[in-house]
């Protein structure tokens, strides 16, 4: 069954702007992960945040996790055309990853 729900479903921004994507989930988790999928390719892991962490950074990425609200956000700063892709949040519990439906991000040059 689906666990993560991303919001918005699609996002279009200008190069240089920041992109914020949200994810909500329903049950308790061990960790939450974000993945990127370029068109016709496999998924690439971006960042993992554990249930006892609140914020994590990696390069231009910032992820927050609020376990009381069962929600996470992914911020991509200073976006580039190469960031155009689908982004998925995935929750880890019961030894498996459960993915959301994904967010399509388009970055206009």
């Amino acid at each position, binding site marked *: 069954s689906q666990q993560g729900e991303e919001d918005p479903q699609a996002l279009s921004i200008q190069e240089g702007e920041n992109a914020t994507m949200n994810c909500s989930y329903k049950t308790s988790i061990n960790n939450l992960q974000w993945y990127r999928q370029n068109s016709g390719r496999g*998924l690439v*892991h971006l960042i*993992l945040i554990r249930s006892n962490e609140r914020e994590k950074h990696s390069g231009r990425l910032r992820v927050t996790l609020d376990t009381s609200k069962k929600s996470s956000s992914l911020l991509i700063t200073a976006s580039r055309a190469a960031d155009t892709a689908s982004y998925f949040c995935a929750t880890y519990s019961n030894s498996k990853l459960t993915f959301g439906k994904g967010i399509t991000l388009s970055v206009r040059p």
Partner: protein
Amino acid sequence: DTAVSQTPKYLVTQMGNDKSIKCEQNLGHDTMYWYKQDSKKFLKIMFSYNNKELIINETVPNRFSPKSPDKAHLNLHINSLELGDSAVYFCASSPRMDSYYEQYFGPGTRLTVT
């Protein structure tokens, strides 16, 4: 060097046929997975193997049979293919089966059943 590889990349076949997809990882990981991504990009786990042992079988029809001959390989055999099996199938691996690790995905196999 490709970390997680799958063959074939594309597979077009008719209903009722039997087909296999192969997956290999050269990362030395213990755990491997099969996922199915449908036309709406929804990605769902099908199976996971840890050290060649089946751990998760996510209510997949028994027409799907995974096989792990060794830790580096996880193959997927599908019998009596149906139209609804059309999807992209991804293999993935992770160092261990616990919550500390991310997963590494292969490039996918696009299966089209006609």
